[in-house]
């Protein structure tokens, strides 16, 4: 059933009523003027829906008459939801479509009994940030999107006892004791991804840690990591030297690393650059 507004002509229609081609075209049109537009083709959006457990029955397209004004999607996992891919056509912004889309997703999460809603907004996207604050979301962190060029010469791997981890072992590690991660980096995201593997290192001084990643055709991505013993900077550096010496010709992009992560200097030492930042926001049920 469509959710129909009582105060204006904008109505919400479940995204599952549209083809993925329609959703892809709409999403791209909503982002044309973004500093970081992140356009997608159909295959990329389909992969995104799978990786991040997007529920199209509880995601929405904002319509006015027969015109598609905007889109917003809801990721659904145990006890939590995620708002993503929110966008409104530039020519139709500031008329309530974004507000209505987010309210629709909040109602959908509530109807599914999910007490926590998470999202990220690109830093300096002031209108979206203000909208989420107005709807009761609160900032919980600042996240980095980092990139490393394959043109950077591979480092020499730090001497360590290195163990390659297969998919099964890697997924066991990411499923344990990492706290609440941003949606993109949660264990479900890696479980849904192909070509996941990892490295576990023990250094001469007893420091120890692991790194799990997805290896795509041209790209290393979706990092999860942990220092189990010792200094995070030392362990992080050692893990990255092993990773990049193993894949010297692959590009690397990692999303949503916390700005306060103690491993972060190791990434910069290894040639990673900051692409942009996001603000992470949460809203708990009945929090206003």
């Amino acid at each position: 059933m469509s959710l129909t507004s009582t105060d204006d002509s904008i109505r919400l229609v479940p995204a599952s009523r549209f083809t993925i081609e329609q959703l892809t075209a709409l999403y791209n049109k909503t982002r044309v003027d973004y500093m970081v537009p992140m356009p997608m083709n159909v295959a990329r959006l389909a992969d995104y829906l799978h990786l991040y457990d997007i529920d199209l029955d509880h995601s929405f397209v904002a319509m006015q008459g027969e015109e598609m004004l905007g889109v917003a999607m809801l990721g659904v996992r145990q006890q939590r939801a995620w708002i993503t891919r929110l966008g409104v056509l530039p020519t139709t912004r500031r008329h309530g479509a974004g507000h209505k889309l987010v309210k629709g997703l909040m109602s959908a999460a509530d109807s599914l009994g999910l007490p926590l809603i998470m999202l990220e907004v690109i830093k300096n996207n002031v209108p979206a940030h203000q909208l989420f604050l107005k709807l009761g979301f609160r900032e919980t962190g600042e996240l980095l999107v980092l990139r490393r060029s394959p043109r950077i010469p591979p480092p020499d791997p730090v001497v360590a006892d290195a163990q390659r981890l297969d998919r099964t072992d890697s997924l066991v590690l990411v499923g344990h004791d990492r706290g609440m991660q941003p949606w993109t980096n949660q264990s479900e995201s890696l479980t849904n991804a192909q070509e996941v593997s990892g490295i576990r290192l023990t250094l001469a001084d007893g420091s120890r840690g692991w790194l799990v990643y997805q290896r795509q055709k041209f790209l290393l991505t979706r990092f999860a990591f942990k220092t189990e013993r010792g200094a995070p900077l030392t362990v992080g550096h050692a893990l990255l030297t092993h990773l990049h010496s193993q894949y010297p010709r692959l590009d690397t992009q990692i999303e949503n690393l916390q700005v306060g992560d103690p491993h972060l200097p190791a990434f910069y030492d290894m040639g990673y650059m900051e692409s942009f930042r996001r603000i992470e926001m949460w809203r708990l049920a009945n929090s206003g």
Partner: protein
Amino acid sequence: MKAKILVLVIEDMPDNAELARKVLTARGYEVILAYDAESGLKTAKEQHPDIILLDLGLPDYDGQTLAGWLRDEPLLTHTPIVAVTAWPQETARQMVESYGCNGYISKPINVANFADQIAAFLKPPSASK
């Protein structure tokens, strides 16, 4: 008589691509368009353009990844690659240097001097000093 300078514009937004084509054609350049990374790479390998203008946000693979592929092509090693991006200047500068581009032009393009900006990347190093 010298053939026209061939410009490959790789840009997923048709309006932006057409604007670039219109501005550059008016200045005597020959312009070909590609709308994603895979077709951009294919076109570059087949047509050997004199310069490549590269949007960093593409729908299949992003512009940085494509810049790396282009640089790995022996016949394109010395072809100027110019990123066209809305990213902040410092981010754009770091990104293009790291991925082997020759420089960048900020979006939205300035129609009045866009062709001159392209011409500057086509000058031999000695002429640009």
